[in-house]
């Protein structure tokens, strides 16, 4: 199957997704912001439709619009501190409203459905360059801000006292989330994208390790989930997004069961 150029393109993008998503996801999950990932992945649909409407790259459209939505969430948090779930509803309504209005207007010259479920056939060369550039910038930014982001996630007050510019970094982080989402939408699709951000991290958390090892295991699980999802979905002729989500859930359940069995065996033998 790797003789086909579309599968080579899909594999190229998948590798970047499987590294970038857990790197962003670990901070979202540990800050209890998993639902922001879900909201922004739905918001990306509006960016895709705007991109298609303007005859521009939908991936670029998704990145710009999702970044704006991420910044909007951060901005609204200042005013609606106690209602973060309400903020997500507002942003979700705005973006899905835009997407549905554009799709139903009949003015789109392309099909937006493939972005909902994910497709290996639609990855273009321009998408690959966009994915490469966004991923590289995101990973470098994450390395540069690693300690600040780790501390904001672990103990925001201590981070502020140590002089970390928490608000600024939160805005930068919103853009990183937008980047991870726009990189992933081609293959995974809007509907299950948040699972790629949260599930490999949730699986790695079951192992009870420190931060760096949890991050490393998140990437390993993400690579396993996304690549097996890609190849098996090709064989079964189903959308890769949905199948990858299923693989992620299965891997999570297997790891939970293995951990339980291992701990019971340990109790019995001790």
């Amino acid at each position: 199957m790797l003789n086909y150029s579309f599968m080579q393109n899909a594999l190229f993008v998948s590798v970047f997704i499987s590294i970038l998503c857990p790197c962003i996801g670990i901070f979202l999950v540990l800050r209890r912001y998993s639902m922001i990932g879900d909201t922004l992945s739905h918001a990306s649909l509006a960016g895709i439709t705007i991109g298609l409407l303007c005859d521009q790259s939908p991936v670029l459209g998704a990145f710009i619009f999702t970044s704006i939505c991420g910044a909007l969430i951060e901005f609204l948090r200042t005013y609606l501190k106690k209602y973060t779930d309400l903020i997500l509803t507002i942003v979700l309504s705005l973006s899905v409203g835009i997407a549905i209005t554009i799709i139903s207007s009949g003015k789109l010259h392309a099909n937006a459905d493939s972005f909902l479920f994910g497709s290996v056939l639609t990855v273009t060369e321009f998408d690959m360059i966009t994915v490469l550039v966004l991923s590289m910038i995101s990973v470098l930014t994450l390395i540069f801000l690693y300690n600040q982001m780790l501390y904001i996630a672990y103990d925001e007050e201590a981070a502020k006292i140590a002089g970390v510019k928490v608000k600024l970094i939160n805005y930068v982080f919103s853009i990183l989330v937008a980047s991870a989402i726009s990189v992933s939408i081609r293959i995974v699709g809007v509907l299950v994208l948040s699972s790629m951000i949260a599930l490999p991290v949730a699986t790695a958390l079951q192992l009870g390790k420190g931060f760096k090892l949890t991050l490393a295991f998140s990437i390993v699980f993400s690579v396993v989930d996304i690549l097996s999802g890609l190849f098996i979905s090709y064989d079964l002729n189903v959308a890769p997004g949905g199948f990858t989500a299923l693989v992620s859930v299965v891997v999570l359940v297997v790891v939970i069961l293995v951990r339980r069995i291992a701990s019971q065996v340990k109790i019995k033998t001790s």
Partner: protein
Amino acid sequence: MFLTIQAKGLYFSYTVSAPYILDGIDFEIKDGDYISILGENGCGKSTLMKLILKLLKPTKGTIVTNADHIGYVPQKNDFSNANFPITVYEMLNAYRRLLKIKNKEAILEVLDRVGMNPFMDSLMGTLSGGQCQKIFIARALMGKPDLLILDEPSTGVDIGSQKEVYRFLKEINKKNGITIVSVEHNLDAAISNSTLIYHLSGGKGHLCTPEKYTAEFLKNEQ
């Protein structure tokens, strides 16, 4: 004696208008003092601490500190991130980098001071209340602070560890001259450890010695 913290006509309200939690308070804390802030729940103790730490801005008035570096020890029970996947070393190392301390030995030094070297590779979530508190004190000591602020250091900590923690705080206050401001609910520890007590009630504050506090305030309450 140099002035460390000074509050002048300090008002604070979370709604930016009256009623004020802190209603025009004034105080001065000098270098080397060990101050315990006492008062009933909701009287504004933690708010005052956050104002000193600049985590909140005064509604009116000023609060200034000329401390070069402030160390902060959070309340153990306030710490909802108990299951965060982070080891003691990772937590201290990230903080060292935030403070731009180049010497990695700084981690071992502070762990050594609180006697927690053997726990360097332990997950934070697996530590007891007392061990956790010692690690947070170790973190606060990184960067050699001249002011240490603690939020109820004995909450969620067993009695044996409480004694160790207070003995250590008294020692670093006396030997190293670190000014300590501690929000307290542990009256005995406050009276035996502090050089001064700041009593908050009804938005107003009163600074006095532990002896005077025992003689006046506690007698009135009885």
